[in-house]
């Protein structure tokens, strides 16, 4: 396993996954770096690295009490955080719209169970159902059902009116 190549291949998706999960860049950065540090002491075949990293990162977020409390605190104050700082060229209305989108997406994620949140985010990263089942520790046959339910719940919170209209017209 080429460690530097593994970092370049996996750091961006892993950061995106963890950042979506925890809602904070600094915390996500810590988790990603810690995951790669642990990879150093566990050399793996290239084909196993991605799932292993996501498993470690998921466990770090789930199991680390310090991280959980920090995550809760960050989410409570998230709308004042620098992650949402406005782009200098954005006009105020755009900033407001963007903040609303972020808030809606965050609210939608937060009303899911931790397990459903992780499953949904792993699906977004293109993991196979069998891989999701292993990382999240659920029966492989239940992944589709759990994901479909999580998707619907997320979509209803993030934009219920728009979703209903579009869904009606697409159906």
């Amino acid at each position: 396993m080429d460690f530097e190549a593994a970092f370049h291949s996996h750091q961006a998706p892993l950061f995106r996954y963890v950042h979506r999960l925890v809602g904070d860049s600094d915390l996500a950065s810590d988790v990603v770096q810690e995951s790669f540090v642990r990879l150093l002491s566990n050399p793996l075949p290239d084909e196993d690295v991605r799932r292993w990293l996501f498993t470690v990162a998921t466990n770090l977020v789930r199991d680390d009490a310090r991280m959980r409390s920090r995550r809760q605190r960050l989410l409570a104050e998230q709308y004042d955080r620098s992650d949402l700082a406005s782009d200098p060229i954005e006009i105020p209305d755009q900033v407001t719209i963007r903040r609303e989108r972020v808030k809606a997406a965050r609210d939608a994620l937060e009303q899911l169970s931790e397990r459903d949140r992780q499953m949904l985010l792993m699906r977004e990263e293109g993991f196979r159902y069998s891989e999701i089942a292993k990382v999240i520790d659920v029966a492989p046959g239940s992944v589709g059902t759990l994901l479909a339910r999580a998707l619907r719940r997320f979509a209803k919170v993030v934009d219920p009116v728009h979703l209903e209209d579009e869904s009606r017209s697409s159906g």
Partner: protein
Amino acid sequence: MNDLGGTHIEDGALLAYLDGELEDVERDALEAHVSDCSECAGRRDELRFVAKHVSNGLEALDAPSPWTELPESLRQASLDAVRPISSARSARAGRAGRIGRRSIATAAGLFFVLAAGAYAIPGSPIRGFIDNALASVASAVGLGEEAPVDPGPAGVAVDLRDGSVRVLILGATSELRVTVFLTSGESALVTARDPRFRVEAGLLEISDPTGELEVALPRGAEGATVEVDGSVVARFENGQLVRTPAAGNVPAEILVRTDG
């Protein structure tokens, strides 16, 4: 997979279809059903839309990754990381070996020039001496067969999980001697010869080690065990490292150092 032959298809199967997760047979059955069932076709399209909507919604949360290059902390960690101790030792031995051989070769060359005159004299008794000397020099500089290089032991570290660590040794033989001791480090460290390691947080498994195997357990751990083929041979708890009675029943020799 579920309910493809029944009245309607569950959302889970429809999503699995959209995600390309179905086997050919399942996919064909689903498509056949959906072509005749407007309700399932409607839910399939709805799910497709919902999934796209979710992806768009999640993108609002994204922040750019902070790295374009390997961060220095990780680069340094990768350099310091668990690499087989054998490779470091071999490198050092190799450098020392090259310097030594070069010096010997230089000396041999000088010797050869000085002796050439005497060697050129037919019947000179010094010929035999020089022949022997050259053979010795050739052997010393390694022109003959290379002796096999001992790869030496390899080491691996494992972090604690919830303050504890387990070290599992599999495939022990009477040729194996395990020494367990405490260290002030924060990780457990094992060095072994010709081993296969498997590492998880809080767990280190060593398969088929031979010769000397050293297990350093972190003094700050809340608990730690060393197991040989399923038997706990050493245990660290309440600040005490002890050799268990089971240590006498495994094929390997178990030494537990409590002197620090």
